[in-house]
């Protein structure tokens, strides 16, 4: 018969190996399985905790950010003074060019439920979901600019893949419309802060430092005109082929407390699925 200490030690080792094996299995499991497991946890055991955090975020926002939001609303109200004139001009020009009426996405506000992991800024949990009309592949913005897109949507929460995620891509164009490309987070190990790269710019085109970069509207996910960031220099170039520019993002996912999900696009999903990929 084994001594009690040795029995305990073997049991400890067995439990440890079992947990490590499950963790490694989760790391390399297919992506739909990973999202399904995460979704199941969020909609069952973690649901009361997420609800608790949503209450706390709402309370914090209402107390500490009231002044900032009031100032933003006042600025927006001033900017909106000239909106009727611009809309009228736009309608007249579209009529002259025989263009259809521009479709404006409907924004839905959502609180960001930040977590403590250091990878929090890559994938944000937000406190609104399918009940508010949110679907996968809808754009997510903050007052500063583009944050990312909805990856999966549950009944009352959704996951947002931000521009800091290695898999994120968006079709982009400079503000004057002269240069187009694709933006994604930089993999350059020498850059201190998370930055974006504007890739696929032909070598013959050059972009000046300080040029604003916006979404181009190509691809059907992001509408044209969302602020992505500002060009800060050339990251690297392939002689005679292309230049890759470094773009400082306008919005910081790690610091944002609330976002707007732009409804209108996205990919519908069956109502029965709790939280699914498109």
């Amino acid at each position, binding site marked *: 018969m084994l001594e009690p200490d040795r029995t*305990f030690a073997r*049991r*400890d*080792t*067995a*439990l*440890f190996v079992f*947990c*490590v094996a*499950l*963790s*490694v*299995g*989760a*790391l*390399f*499991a297919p992506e739909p399985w*990973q*999202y399904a*497991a*995460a*979704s199941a*946890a*969020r909609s069952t*055991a*973690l649901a009361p*905790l*997420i609800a*608790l*955090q949503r*209450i*706390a*975020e709402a*309370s*914090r926002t209402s107390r500490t950010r009231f002044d900032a939001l009031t100032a933003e609303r006042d600025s927006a109200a001033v900017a909106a003074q000239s909106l009727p004139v611009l809309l009228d001009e736009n309608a007249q020009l579209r009529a002259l060019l025989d263009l259809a009426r521009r479709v404006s996405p409907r924004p839905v506000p959502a609180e960001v*439920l*930040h*977590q*403590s*992991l*250091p*990878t*929090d800024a*890559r*994938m944000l*949990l937000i406190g609104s979901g399918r009940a508010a009309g949110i679907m996968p592949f809808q754009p997510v913005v903050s007052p500063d600019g583009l944050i990312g897109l909805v990856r999966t949507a549950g009944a009352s929460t959704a*996951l947002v893949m931000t521009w800091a*995620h*290695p898999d994120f891509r968006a079709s982009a164009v400079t503000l004057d419309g002269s240069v187009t490309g694709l933006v994604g987070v930089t993999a*350059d*190990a*020498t*850059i*201190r*802060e*998370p930055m974006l790269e504007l890739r696929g710019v032909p070598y013959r085109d050059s972009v000046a430092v300080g040029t604003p970069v916006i979404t181009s509207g190509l691809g059907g996910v992001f509408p044209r005109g969302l602020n992505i960031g500002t060009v800060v220099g050339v990251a690297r170039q392939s002689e005679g082929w292309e230049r890759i520019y470094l773009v400082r993002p306008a919005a910081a996912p*790690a*610091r944002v407390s609330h976002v707007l999900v732009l409804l209108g696009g996205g990919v519908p999903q069956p109502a029965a699925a709790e939280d699914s990929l498109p």
Partner: protein
Amino acid sequence: MTAARARRIRFMLVMVLLVGLQFYVRPRLWNPRVAPDFLMLGLMLFAIRSRPGAAALAGFIIGFASDALTPARFGAAMLANTLVGYAAAWGRAVFFADNLLVNAGFIAAGVWLRNLLVLIASGTSGRDLLVQLFLWSPALALSTAIAGVIVLAVFRDWLDIRLEE
């Protein structure tokens, strides 16, 4: 009710309190990147008074919850918390002194190690890794350690953790 059962219930109450702090109080505290990680604190306190196998299992469960809430790299937090829980329980059994500041250092080291493992498992590299490890992670570890000292000082009898006078 036996004394052992009463101790277990008191310890569970502290763990429930920490979960409540994580989801109700933490969002109201400063920058989310440096606010104390009460779940990690709970894991470290559990590891201090438990066997390595139980601590590994607790780490796995907490890691699963973290991954479900931030699935940037699903499984990374599970693996990191399992390793940290197991190592913390072994470390406590082998060389740990019953001192409040040493406990605080132990908690801070656990948080920092967890972040290191999560970042590596998530494929973070270069200067971003360095900034995370030497700027944000130490700040998070420090705030969690301070919270740990407060919890240990207030609930030292309930936690059943021996501390030098």
